[in-house]
């Protein structure tokens, strides 16, 4: 089969399965992950105001982890990055690791900013926690 007609410099084309089984399997995996995310989202909605701050945060982190799993399946299987050679994968993945620091540093900074505002730059104690300050009405009219 003529698999490398696009350029003589390319000696390898990723193994393409003759069937579409892997594509549909990935579709079901993505759908299942989305349904689980939605389930957790509805859980947070129904239990709004009844959960501790830490529990809510952990659930949100779990949803974020599921999102990363979805991203992995899209990039690895739909975009075929998982079929490329290792050097190619690394030139994409390694620069993206900067995001780890970006996210940590900027969210930390946002939180520090809030603390400065709530305490007049540390000159007074913060009044109350945010969720006690603003009780959110459930089933609010749109």
């Amino acid at each position, binding site marked *: 089969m003529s698999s490398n007609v696009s350029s003589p410099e390319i000696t390898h084309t990723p193994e393409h399965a003759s069937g579409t089984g892997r594509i549909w399997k990935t579709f079901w995996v993505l759908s299942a992950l989305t349904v689980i995310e939605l389930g957790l989202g509805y859980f947070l909605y129904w239990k709004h105001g009844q959960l501790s701050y830490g529990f809510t945060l952990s659930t949100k982190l779990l949803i974020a982890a599921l999102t990363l799993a979805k991203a992995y399946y899209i*990039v690895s299987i739909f975009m075929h990055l998982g079929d490329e050679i290792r050097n190619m994968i690394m030139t994409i993945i390694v620069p993206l690791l900067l995001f780890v620091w970006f996210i940590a540093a900027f969210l930390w900074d946002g939180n520090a900013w*809030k603390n400065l505002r709530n305490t007049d730059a540390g000159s007074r104690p913060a009044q109350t926690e945010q969720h006690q300050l603003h009780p959110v009405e459930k089933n609010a009219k749109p």
Partner: protein
Amino acid sequence: MSTTSIPTNTKWWNGGRSPFNISYGKVMMWYFLMSDAFTFGAFLISYGTIRFSVNHWADPNQVFNAFPFAGHANLPLAFVSLMTFILIFSSVTMVLAVHEGHKMNRRGVEKYMILTILGGLAFLGCQAWEWTHMITGDHAVLVNGEIEKWGTTVTKNPWGPHVMHEGQLVSTPGPIAFGGYFFGITGFHGFHVFSGVIINLVMLIKTRLGHFDQRGHYEMIEKAGLYWHFVDLVWVFVFLCFYLV
């Protein structure tokens, strides 16, 4: 199925072959997508920073609870789930088009490209409805002691903290950044979807004209596919940051 497997201990960088063993066009598409990922990442991280820095942020379950033709029914997450599944499904039809391209099956590529384009248009239609619904909404907001009816725009955020006013719980203006970030980021993503639809249309026309059969390979479909999957990938994160958490 490939005729040659990767030879072990190949000196990839000595010339005469592509160091990453994929075509120049695909490498550059990947690097473009990586830079685009940083752009979207910067937007979303900026949004996160502002959201972390204020005491109150709009509750997505309250803001996004409408569904077309459902009147004022309270349906949080429903419409955006539909949008998410539309985009996932159009990603599947795109990857099936690429698959048919590998088999040099022009009819198959055409069929799946049409389905992908329809998926993209359906998503854009949903987004147009959602934006219209938000901008033209009329939510009671307490402004300077008076009740005003506000939609969500880049200058107005009716989703602030609730206070008691004349025996009723009413909203106050929220951080103005909400509308700017929401419309800015979903708009930038929607523009990517729009340009993806245009690219896919061009690919469909070129397929119909038999350009890829003459060329002997369907690699352009793969490159358009990379872009289209990236649009889906970004949506996964927009969905997380704006609607789920």
